[in-house]
């Protein structure tokens, strides 16, 4: 079974993880339209490509980010969510 490199716990089999899907930023609930809001709720980007996803290592309860190529299922990088802010800055 697939191995994921948890930034905190090292390489572990897929069985120890749960995914919450792609990182998405919600539109501002106070200013967006109903259409924009429901699109955020129910639509997902299905085009294959490298996606940033939330993954949780369940025995330790640690959430982190994985960059995964959804076409090849290859995980290119995993890192702590704190680095998101740094990456956003670049």
């Amino acid at each position, binding site marked *: 079974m697939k191995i994921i490199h948890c930034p905190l716990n090292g390489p572990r089999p897929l069985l120890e993880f749960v995914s919450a899907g792609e990182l998405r930023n919600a539109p501002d609930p106070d200013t967006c339209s109903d259409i924009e809001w429901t699109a955020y*709720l129910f639509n997902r980007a299905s085009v294959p490509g490298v996606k940033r996803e939330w993954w949780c290592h369940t025995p330790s309860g640690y959430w982190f980010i994985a960059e995964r190529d959804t076409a090849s299922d290859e995980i290119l990088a995993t890192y702590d969510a704190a680095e998101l802010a740094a990456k956003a800055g670049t």
Partner: protein
Amino acid sequence: MMYRLPQVAGEWIDRSRTLSFEFEGRPFQGFAGDTISSALAAAGEMTLGRSFKYHRPRGIFSFANHDANNLFQVARPSSGWVPNVRGDVTELAAGMRATAVNTIGGLARDRGRFIEWLAPFLPVGFYYKAFHGRNFPRWEQRIRAFSGLGRIAADARRERTPKRYAFCDVLVIGAGVSGLATALSAADAGARVLLVDENARAGGCASWTGAASGEVDALIRRVADHPDIELLPGTYAAGIYADRWVALVEPSRMAKVRAGAVVFAMGVIEQPAVFRNNDLPGVLLGSAAQRLLRRYAIAPGKRVAILAANREGYELARDLRAHQVHVAAVLDLREGAGGDADGLGDVRCVTGVVPEAAIAGSKGVVRALRVRGATIECDAVLMSVGFAPAAGLLSQAGALMQYDKALQQHLPVKLPPGIFAAGRVNGTYDYAARCQDGRDVGAEAAAYARGGLVGTRVPRPETARQVSHPYPVFPHPSARDFVDLDEDVQVKDLLGSAQEGFDSTELMKRFSTLGMGPSQGKHSNLHGARILMRSRESTLADTALTTQRPFYHPVPLKHLAGMGFHAHRHSGVHDRHVSLDARFMTVGGWQRPEYYQASGQSREDCIAAEVRAVREHVGLIDVSTLGKIEIFGPDAGAFLDRIYTGSFSDLRVGMTRYGLLLDESGIVRDDGVIARLADQHFYFTTTTSGAANVYRELLLWNARWRMDCAFVNATGHRAAFNLAGPKSRELLQALTDIDLSETAFPFLGVREGGVAGVEARVLRAGFVSSLGFEIHVPYRSAGQVWDALMKASGVRAFGVEAQRVLRLEKGHAIVAQDTDNLTNPFEAGMGWAVRMQKPFFIGQRSLRIHVRRGARQKLIGFELAPDQVASGAAIRESNLLIHLGGIAGRVTSVAQSPTLGRTIGLAMAAPNLAAPGTPIVIRASDGRLVSARVVRTPFLEAG
């Protein structure tokens, strides 16, 4: 007819130990070390089974674990019947009783054999076309009675089979020459090596061709002595999965291996020649004859004809002669070959042979082979015409295989990282080349496993000699020229499939069933593709073979089932429930008492008595399964404000508030009670089944928001009990120093203090009764507190079922029972828990939309009249509400209330039916229509 020879050097049998067994009710004997098939062959028993479709007599064919026609139903003295035992590889045991499968009335007098006369009516794919209409079920039963392999013993004992995880740097699959060389090379480079082989001993084909056997034995010894190599004989790789995760099937169990690198050295699978009656007992592969000869000292016949198209066929002839077996002729399919015929003396060697048919003698065994221009009398026909790579697992691993015209074999041309191939599967055939290939690959695999990056290797096939005939297929106008012996697929079946439009390998497979039998096309896929390509006048180089999937060989279900672990949870007072004779149910992985069995009473009476105890006196329920979460920190209150629908930053220390959790689309997901223990410390509950998910969700939200708070999941670490009923306060006060009076401890309050000598958190609960206390203590102290509470007079333990009735009487909804994936809080009567004016909470934006749309359904309470006893008992959850001939909702909870003496329940109903007093109609499970009335909840105010 086959027969046993005198001692053969290196034989696997122990002639000093004779084993008696039965086949088809007749007694036989074999030696220790024999397999079932070899012992039968030694006794001259040539017919070992009946084919799947036509019930033709069949014997040994490959002797390499793909003899699907030599499957037996086997019983040992100590255990019951086991179906589909592979006769060619299963070792004989004393007292075994074996019968052929797929026969009606025994092997010899199989009544199914007459089906061959119906062959003209059974063309390929006939079952797709016939049997339409009402009669199909009856035909289906007949077909099932005729086909199918083996019978399951319905009374077989459950066996728990351990599995194990294993780890290695380099996994080498196949312990033939190249596998052995690979393992030694990798281990010498510092890798820990696991070497597996499906045969009982290492050595591969060298062990039964006799070629270079001395050197192979030396390799085996070096492997055995090497501290970094573990050899697992009798073990096959059933499948390979992501990141070099391999399922190994050992004789008694399954091992799941994580390898740093995997080397496939599985060699090749000998392929048959296709001609009329190539399936007769006595017609077998050359490698089968050699295994029989060298391992079990069995000669294939007294007059042997060899169909050859490579040097291996001549080596086979020389080997047989060296063991005093008479070779009648070597018949070479190739034109003008014959340079390999040295040392064959007076054996007749002919080239340019075109086989026409094998001819059956008495008992259906071969007695002659007719070729164009001659008929050769023989009682065995050995085929040595070519090979296909054993590349099923390589393909699963993601290797790209391409047909090499020089070698007439698919070769791996592109391998994923960490995957390697060595030996004949890699296109190297001769001994020295295979050793070198193994040495090179072993070093590369070790380097990869230990972290070095290497490029993917390109194979170096030798092009010197032809090993496989490009088209050893000789169709006959009267057919019976079998391509697939598992499924009785003939050449005309494949041509027919293509003609009907099923003209790709994948479609042809499914229409003709080629390759769908127990050997999964190991001896038929390549020929099938060749036949298809020739009929379409294209080339194999452009064709993909059918996709290979796990498992490589059939795996016993008990290996997969393993130990059957079912993780379950017990509360800290589980043993108390057991001693109170609780009947348990499983909720969210926990064992919970459903009710406590009072002797001589029915389940309903026990539950009703527990309900009455709580209403009249006091009851105690173990609610340890509730999720329990703590939040600490300066932002704790603000965090809860954002997560739940209510306000918690303004909750006073020492008070609790109902917490309703929605998802982003405004749907009710979970609920609980949130207590503020200190300015920066909240402690709250969730539903039992939602505990783990809610905790994970909180962590995820905070990974996004990064607020200053810390979370603790105390669910399993704290026990909790609910002491409920009018006498609860009095009882509890005797056990605690906390002031429980109404003024000191109002409804919805929370206090910390000692209960029965244990540090506890006590919440005023109202879920099942107006007066009740939820007591939370550390897990290990649970027993002490439970015992103290139960010692008080009149306390009765009550379980989940009684709790359901009690909370229903109080009109409380249960999330995910009375709500579903479409229920927003306003529909469920929980709007009071929603503070829309907060700046933000999860689901708020969606609720604005829900509010504007209006409710699509409403959770209502209903009741039946007291005299509607039978009707009330007939109503179940999910029974529909019927209005004007259509569905107007469904029942979500229902119970006979002992307190109120009538049936009460909750239902999701259309909004126009929601007004109290409205008559509604419920359709019970037995179809009857029951009248009920909508009423306000709670059904019971006081108590």
